[in-house]
């Protein structure tokens, strides 16, 4: 009968696993290079804030009003006017993707303005829906501002100016008043990094041991199953937490993301999330016992859902109902609100605890199945 737990044996095995991990350069790649890469991409690259769009103008009217409106577009901070051509020519540029919109100032615009009207046409590139929406809205903004100024210059009180609009909305954004998308993307990338280390790296490494038969070798020793699994996951648990700490440090120092919660809360949140992540990694490796299949499964069931279905990049509420249900099966779904809160809002245990309970539940489930599958494989 083997002893279930032996501190010396456990310590020795833990040391062996840790050395094995530290020796492999790919570990450093995932634990330290990947977080840096993700932070840089999410900090600088994935920017959902309003850009400056390249547009073309087709001015078909020579009136002073039309010229001054075109001048306003050229001077606008929202647009970069790259060309003045007829629509037929500009449309080719729009198809090629060189410009994102065309402003058409129609014939007779000046005459219409003098009569109190004056409409323009805005053609956008609908193949980029987000950009198209901005171009449409900001073009109308430029036109409206011009119309108000023009009316004043003409000595007429324009509509809406002079007395306030009938209903106005006063916007306040809590936690992130300047609406920097970086502030929610950078904490979110911590979820991706921990998923990578917890699930992907663990799945790969343990699958490799299955592939080579070294795991069966270990199981033939007097070590208990629980002990063996622990020695496999503890090093990754620690590694993931180190990586998380590195991300947090960089997020705060380099990217200026506020950290309003407590470090202890962040540690607790991360530690709890790592349980389902590691459990899933073990489960994948035990179920596949093949590095390639394990890596693909980890990519599909852990990395992509964390990136796309966790509410990190895309609003869950906007997804179709079936997919919304599916997101409840993604552990990162419960992590993202906690991370956003600990960074931007400050500790709120009323929000943390239910999410932590869900994560613990997933963790227990994954570990239970992983142990069952492992037992069956060995038997």
């Amino acid at each position, binding site marked *: 009968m083997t002893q279930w737990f032996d501190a010396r044996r456990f310590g020795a095995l833990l040391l062996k696993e840790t050395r094995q991990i530290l020796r*492999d350069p*790919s570990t450093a*790649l*995932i634990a330290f290079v*990947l977080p840096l890469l*993700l932070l840089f*991409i999410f900090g600088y*690259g*994935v920017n*959902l*804030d309003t*850009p400056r*769009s390249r547009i073309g103008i087709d001015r078909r009217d020579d009136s002073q009003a039309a010229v001054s409106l075109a001048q306003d577009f050229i001077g606008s901070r929202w647009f970069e006017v790259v060309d003045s051509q007829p629509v037929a020519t500009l449309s080719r540029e*729009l*198809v*090629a993707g060189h410009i994102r919109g065309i402003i058409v100032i129609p014939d007779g615009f000046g005459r219409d303005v003098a009569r109190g009207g*004056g*409409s*323009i*046409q*805005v*053609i956008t590139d*609908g*193949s980029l829906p*987000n*950009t*198209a929406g901005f171009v*449409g809205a900001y073009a*109308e903004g430029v*036109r409206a501002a011009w119309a108000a100024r023009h009316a004043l210059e003409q000595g007429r009180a324009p*509509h809406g100016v002079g007395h306030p*609009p*009938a*209903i106005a*909305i*006063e*916007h*306040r*954004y809590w936690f*992130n008043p300047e609406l920097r*998308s970086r*502030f929610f993307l950078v904490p979110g990338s911590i979820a991706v990094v921990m998923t990578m280390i917890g699930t992907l*790296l663990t799945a790969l490494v343990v699958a490799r041991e299955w592939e080579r038969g070294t795991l069966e070798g270990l199981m033939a020793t007097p070590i208990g199953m629980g002990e063996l699994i622990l020695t496999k996951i503890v090093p990754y648990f620690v590694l993931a937490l180190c990586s998380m700490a590195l991300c947090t440090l960089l997020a705060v120092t380099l990217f200026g993301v506020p950290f309003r919660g407590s470090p202890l809360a962040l540690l607790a949140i991360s530690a709890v999330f790592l349980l389902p992540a590691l459990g899933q990694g073990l489960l994948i490796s035990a179920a596949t016992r*093949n590095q390639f*299949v394990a*890596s*693909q499964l980890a*990519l*599909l069931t852990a990395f992509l859902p964390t990136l*796309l279905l966790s509410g990190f*990049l*895309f*609003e869950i*509420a*906007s997804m*179709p109902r079936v*997919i919304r249900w599916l997101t409840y099966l993604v552990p990162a779904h419960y992590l993202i*609100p906690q991370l956003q809160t600990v960074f931007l*809002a400050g500790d*709120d245990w009323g929000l943390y605890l239910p999410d932590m309970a869900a994560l613990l539940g997933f963790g227990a489930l994954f570990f239970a199945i992983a142990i069952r599958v492992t037992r069956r494989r060995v038997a």
Partner: protein
Amino acid sequence: MTIIRLRSIIIKELWAILRDPRTRIILLVPPIVQLLIFGLATTLEVKNMTLGVLDRDGGAWSQELLQRVAGSPNVTRIIPLKNEQDLREAIDRQHVIAALRFDSHFSADVASGRGGVVGLVSDGRRSNAAQIVSGYLDQIAAGVGASVSKTQTGSSSSGGSVVINWFNRNLDYLWFTMPALVAVISAISAMSVVAQSVARERELGTYDQLMVSPLRVGEILIGKMVPPVLIGTFITTVYVILIPLVFRVPLTGSVALLYGALFIYLLALTGVGMLVSVLSATQQQAFLGMFLVAIPVILLSGYASPIDNMPHWLQVIAHLDPATYFLKVTEGVFLKAMPAADVLDNCWPLALICVVTLSASALLFRSRME
């Protein structure tokens, strides 16, 4: 001789990948599931939102505004809030994305012509969604405001902008996502396969056998490029059939052009993947290395956020990304009926990436031989 050798290495490589039934399944089934799930999930629109309302006014105009808000197709639920503390908790706990706050004199202000002001508190933790919600509510408020002005002064509006969205009239986000996924998912599949190929031989020890065989380096590399190109082509074919039929996204351009560009794109991806594979000693390193390359390939391609929004130096890097070019081609061929000249403009950078990465791989491959 070369033909016979090439044939046998191609058969061997295909066999190495497709022999394992689980690998066959994992290569062919998930891309279709991904198309369904991620295609439908990745939208930057905000739908089904839940709003909170703290209505201290309860007058005619706050009711009118609330009714319009409730009638908006983007709003599914409005939660009435009793007081400031309720509001704070609803936002803090993310029960609502935003909350409207009417002061007690709101309707009186509107009726008197002084103009009423509604407060809107949004959850800045989800700043992008919050911003979009604010935009929707501004529009609704402006609409109600216009009807107020009309009843008070009888005036009509002056001028305006008529916005026409070409290629995608209703700015349906699915029309963007679907063609983009063709570029993204075929990249993941093709690169996963090729990154394993050389590293696997090295780990299993068959690399040396390959070296002593009469095969030349070029032949070995070509043999290893065939499976990812075939798999990528297969996945794209499934997509090109499914996307117009199931998702009703129009396919306006030439399918032949799409396949031409696809072929060069897949070659460029295999070139990148091959470089990773040759540089790795084990499958684990190859996979993780591939992953490290795949993340920027996907995120900088314009799929996750427009390239226009990136800082200039990052746009330069984005133009080293094969997916950036192919994304333009898939969007163009699906939605814009992109002419051959524009497709070609995006193909030559791909060819360049392919030549550079493959030559580097061949050089490294050879140097490892000695």
